[in-house]
């Protein structure tokens, strides 16, 4: 903030114009939204504010797009909606952002203050409805609060454990005139996230690592949020520590590294899950011991002691009691832990036995599937083909279901922020709009979406947005004609009673793409798949590729829900 500006007299302007100034001051270059009565003043301000506004076709699409943008760039995403139905349409993205710690500011319109509490037209208690699923929310009560609340919202969304923040602005307040002065500080006495890890704890952790004979690093999405992928790799390579990641953490450690064991959890590799099961020391970093990771909690990693590094103190000992808790930012802590560890000059030879055990699991139980001899495309092969067609270099966004797990297994992410999915909430319909947001944030990168034929229909309307705005995402639908993951559970655990999982031939995705002004392509020959995919990737503009895959294929291996990792099947 320049001095000239800071000393300048407060200017009178509409609160919504001040809102635009605040967004610019926060470095916002794009927002995703859809207008309505209660946020008409805000849209009037957008008309010539010089901020790119992308008109989505459904507010949920806008919310997920803001998430995709945030996950791909590391910046705060912004999503807007009007009051009532517009605002409630954002609830799923808000909850999704909460579960996966995604920094997004949601700005909703609200009815005029005189109508509040009267069940006015399009009134919904957005603060109340969203309260359980936000990091924080602001109900604007005076127009002069708007600038400070906006900056505080960005600060809260971005710092500590990132997350969604809602700002709800009544229509009459947003059009009022206020004296505007740039806000240069935030005052949040109740919010001071710890970022510096405790040195003594770090030292104890280093010693524990040096004394462990069967250690493993278990990294989660927190490492990606912290931008600490390189620091994680440094730590792992300060000795030969084996590394596994959660579905949110993929890419935090290079997926082709010789110390990489693959993803852990329900559909993780046997090597990763067995190593967790037999480890004597687990170093958890930015991970939260979700039930999809632990399986049966009482039998999770029975021999292990836990180092738990997390910026959110409430995650530590929430599910699994930690022995060495370290609260803080992984980017701050990991280099110090590595330095402390190096200074101990531990004998790397002590890990030989552990590695030979791990290598046996890796050799005996690689990820595998029965490839068909005819031209049918196996879903796993579809992901391998995509890996080859993109040279492993794309930002890959997925929806939710079997295709998500296969993508997590077979696409080897070389670096963080290349893999974007809905892990915590498991939101079908996340993929296509999130890919759109990622592409807007990273226009020079190839952005592909691996979608389910079920999931993609939950937000396919955003293809129109992509066509209108020239957002060139390449969507590859893994079309099995089923709500595949549910069908798999019915096959395995409900006697193959396939209840309401078959979706048949509808819609015709090629025609759907064309109707939306995108390019539609159908692929069904595995022998030409890689080349066909390359050709699809080379087409300008948004492309929807309908890839027909084996219909009844199961995602393996698998820890049946609520069972310990040892009981993996398939």
């Amino acid at each position, binding site marked *: 903030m320049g001095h000239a500006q800071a000393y300048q007299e407060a200017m009178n302007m509409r609160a919504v114009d001040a809102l635009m100034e605040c967004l610019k001051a926060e470095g916002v270059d794009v927002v995703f939204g859809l207008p309505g009565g209660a946020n008409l003043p805000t849209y009037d301000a957008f008309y010539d504010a010089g901020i790119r506004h992308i008109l989505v076709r459904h507010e949920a699409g806008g919310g997920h797009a803001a998430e995709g943008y945030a996950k791909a760039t590391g910046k705060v995403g912004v999503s807007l909606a009007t009051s009532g139905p517009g605002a409630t349409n954002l609830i799923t993205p808000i909850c999704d952002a909460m579960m996966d710690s995604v920094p997004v500011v949601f700005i909703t319109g609200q009815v005029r203050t005189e109508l509040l509490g009267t069940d006015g037209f399009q009134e919904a208690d957005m603060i109340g409805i969203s309260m359980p699923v936000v*990091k*924080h929310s602001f109900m604007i009560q005076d127009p002069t609060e708007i600038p400070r609340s906006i900056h505080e919202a960005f600060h809260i969304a971005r710092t500590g454990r990132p997350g969604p923040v809602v700002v709800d602005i009544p229509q009459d307040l947003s059009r009022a005139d206020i004296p505007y002065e740039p806000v240069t500080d935030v005052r*949040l006495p109740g919010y001071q996230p710890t970022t510096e890890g405790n040195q003594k704890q770090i030292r104890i952790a280093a*010693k*524990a690592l040096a*004394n462990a004979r069967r250690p493993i690093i278990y990294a989660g999405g927190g490492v990606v949020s912290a931008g600490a992928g390189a620091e994680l790799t440094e730590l792992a390579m300060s000795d030969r520590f084996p590394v596994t990641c959660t579905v949110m953490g993929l890419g935090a450690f290079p997926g082709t590294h010789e110390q990489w064991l693959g993803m852990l959890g329900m559909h993780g590799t046997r090597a990763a899950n067995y190593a967790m099961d037999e480890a004597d020391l687990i170093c958890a970093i930015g991970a939260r011991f979700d039930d999809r990771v632990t399986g049966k909690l009482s039998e999770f990693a029975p021999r292990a002691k836990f180092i738990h590094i997390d910026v959110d*103190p409430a995650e530590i000992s929430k599910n699994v009691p930690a022995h060495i808790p370290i609260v803080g930012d992984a980017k701050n802590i990991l280099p110090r832990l590595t330095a402390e560890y190096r200074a101990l000059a531990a004998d790397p030879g002590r890990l030989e036995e552990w590695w030979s055990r791990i290598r046996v699991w890796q050799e005996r139980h690689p990820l595998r599937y029965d490839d068909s001899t005819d031209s049918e495309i196996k879903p796993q092969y579809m992901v391998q083909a995509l890996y080859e067609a993109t040279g492993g270099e794309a930002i890959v966004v997925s929806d939710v279901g079997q295709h998500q797990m296969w993508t997590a297994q077979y696409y080897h992410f070389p670096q963080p922020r290349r893999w974007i999915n809905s892990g915590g909430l498991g939101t079908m319909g996340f993929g296509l709009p999130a890919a759109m947001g990622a592409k807007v944030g990273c226009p020079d990168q190839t952005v592909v979406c691996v979608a389910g034929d079920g999931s993609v229909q939950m937000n396919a309307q955003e293809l129109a947005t992509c066509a209108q705005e020239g957002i060139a995402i390449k969507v590859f639908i893994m079309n099995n004609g089923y709500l595949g993951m549910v069908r798999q559970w019915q096959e395995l655990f409900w006697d193959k009673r396939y209840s309401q999982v078959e979706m048949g031939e509808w819609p015709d995705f090629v025609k759907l793409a064309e109707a939306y002004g995108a390019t539609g392509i159908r692929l069904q020959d595995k022998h030409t798949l890689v080349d066909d995919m390359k050709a699809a990737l080379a087409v300008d503009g948004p492309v929807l590729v309908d890839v027909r895959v084996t219909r009844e294929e199961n995602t393996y291996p698998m820890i049946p829900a609520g069972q310990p990792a040892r009981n993996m099947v398939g």
Partner: protein
Amino acid sequence: MGEPGTKEVLSLDELEAVAGLRTGRKHVLSILVENKPGVLTRIAGLFARRGFNIDTLAVGPTDDERISRITLTLDGALHPIDQVTKQLHKLINVLKIRDLEPRETLARELAMFKVSADGASRAEVMQICEIFRGKVVDVTKRSVVIELTGTCDKVDAFEQLVRPFGLIEMARTGEIAIARGRGET
């Protein structure tokens, strides 16, 4: 734990989990919050969502009009208290939380009891009231209303004693608490 780089051995076997434990006793949490609309809803919602049971809850102003104090009691046998306080700390409007040490805390609650008291029983009820340093604040031919302050345990004991006479109604505020001595709660 020694200096950086010292090679002393740290036996993994000796490491103990340091949190997530249940204390088994009653806890009194004194929480300072920003006096803003919706703060109580955020706290109540958090407790409901996470399955934390509140035994009592009292809210009131503090010496600073921008800040309110919430005093709540809960059972440390049912919940790991550190998890409760850590979740509370995540609420942006929560400024400070003290898990009050029983020995260093003065806790009081206000209660009102409407007890049947006709003829013979009246004198006995009054006597109990006196022993507990209660105050009779309303009398009719067939009932008295007694005002009582004290710790939760004292109020519980009083309730037990007067119940046999016919407890018509009871209202309790829940405990509020403050630290002993000069230091701030």
